[in-house]
């Protein structure tokens, strides 16, 4: 199984969710993060002084998927989140050793 962490633009969450659902991913976890990559932040003003704010709001989407769905899931996220502009985000793929569904105690890919 794979654990896929995607950092995307805030406005793209709905598209990504739909793309993933479309390929049969039935669960996911999202959170609000801030980050920077090539995309730079903005300036904020305080009492006449300007401060550079490096970090930009992003959404982090985490999904655990079965190995055979992993590539497809990555592609789904990439195409749903992509605009071709700087700041589109990144996808990180980690190896997932085990998954457990708390309610039933199922484990492995059955738990996803």
């Amino acid at each position, binding site marked *: 199984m794979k654990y896929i962490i995607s950092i995307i633009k805030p*406005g793209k969450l*709905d598209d990504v969710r739909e793309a993933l659902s479309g390929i049969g991913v039935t669960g996911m976890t999202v959170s609000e993060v801030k980050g920077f990559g090539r995309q730079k932040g*903005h*300036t*904020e*003003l*305080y009492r006449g002084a*300007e401060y550079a704010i490096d970090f930009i709001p992003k959404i982090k989407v985490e999904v655990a998927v079965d190995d055979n769905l992993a590539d497809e899931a990555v592609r789904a996220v990439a195409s749903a989140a992509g605009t071709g502009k700087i700041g589109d985000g990144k996808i990180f793929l980690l190896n997932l050793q085990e998954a457990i569904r708390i309610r039933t105690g199922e484990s492995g890919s059955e738990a996803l």
Partner: protein
Amino acid sequence: MISSHLPFFKEARTGFLALFFLSLPSVSHAEGLDSGDTAWIITATALVLFMTIPGLALFYGGLVRTKNVLSVLMQCFAITALMTILWVVAGYTISFGEGNAFMGNFSKAFLAGVGPDSLSGTIPEILFSMFQLTFAIITPALIIGAFAERMKFSAMLLFTGSWMLLIYSPVCHWVWGGGWLMNMGALDFAGGTVVHINAGIAGLVAALVLGKRKGYPNTMMMPHSLTLSVVGASMLWVGWFGFNAGSALAANGTAGMALAVTQISTGAATLAWMFAEWIRHGKPSVLGAITGAVAGLVAITPASGFVGPMGAIAIGAISGIVCFISATTVKRALGYDDSLDAFGVHGVGGLVGALLTGIFAAPALGGYAEIPGIGGQLWIQFIGSAATIAYSAVGSFILLKIIDKAVGLRVSEEDEVTGLDITQHDEKGYNY
């Protein structure tokens, strides 16, 4: 020249009638001043200012997305400052200077001749000018609800400033400053046409000229803090006592009745919207209740010195239902993006109120105005509303087009996505 302290005059059919006569350059006769009336109008002035900042600012500010909250607060705050100066310079004299049937002359530019001793009826004229200023502040501030989340701050200043001088002040003169609608007998106690129809129509035109927000209507654009909006609506409700009961320009029975019908209409409209939504969607929403309250406040405004409690219940209930439909079904059907329902509530509610005033002001229906029959008065009310709609629509359109050419009305798409707070002011509403 009618002396303004005759009792019947205080209860006159048009709340501000006294002013036309009394705002003429006059020798100081401080003996005519009534300290009770003055006490109330000072307070009313504070209350109406309170309606805009922080009342309306919070009501609107809570309804936008987090990234635009400061832009809304800033627009209300800057409008307050800008209108103050423009009113002193020219707005007051265009509205209440002697002039002709269409606008005042410039005899009172820079508040010339308005010293601490000049009176307007039983109160100092300087106080009257400030009470009126608070109306000239909130009216353009109402408009911003229609184009929230997408207009440039610079364009907003140019538009609201020129609009107040060129659209609001003349209409104010027509209705309250001795102009043609006043002479025709149009009833507008506290601003159904002058304030609400006027601002609502300007908002609709602005929403159409600027176009929809990116993503509207498919993306959810949930209010970032209904909590703030409830606070703002509450402040509007309380402050509206200043608006309506203050328009009696005295602390008397008319003021008391204006306060009462304001309270009653608002209660009725809140319940009407709430139950309508409850029936239609299965749950009563908080946004519905507070918008219903505003609808009731708007609709009773022109009627507030003329109708009784039963008229207030009717006006409130009708406006609650009509605005519920206009801000939900109608807006959705027509597809324009009146972000915070400036038109759907103020325009529509103002119109409902202006027309119903012609009905419920009739003594036969518990009202207190001497009118030439319900039909006759309704016709006058219709003329007043239509004239305001036409003038406001055309005038606003022209102003917007000129400003668009000059500096551009709308922020770039990227700036809209980022939000106005960062792009217009380099600040954020919250740094938790």
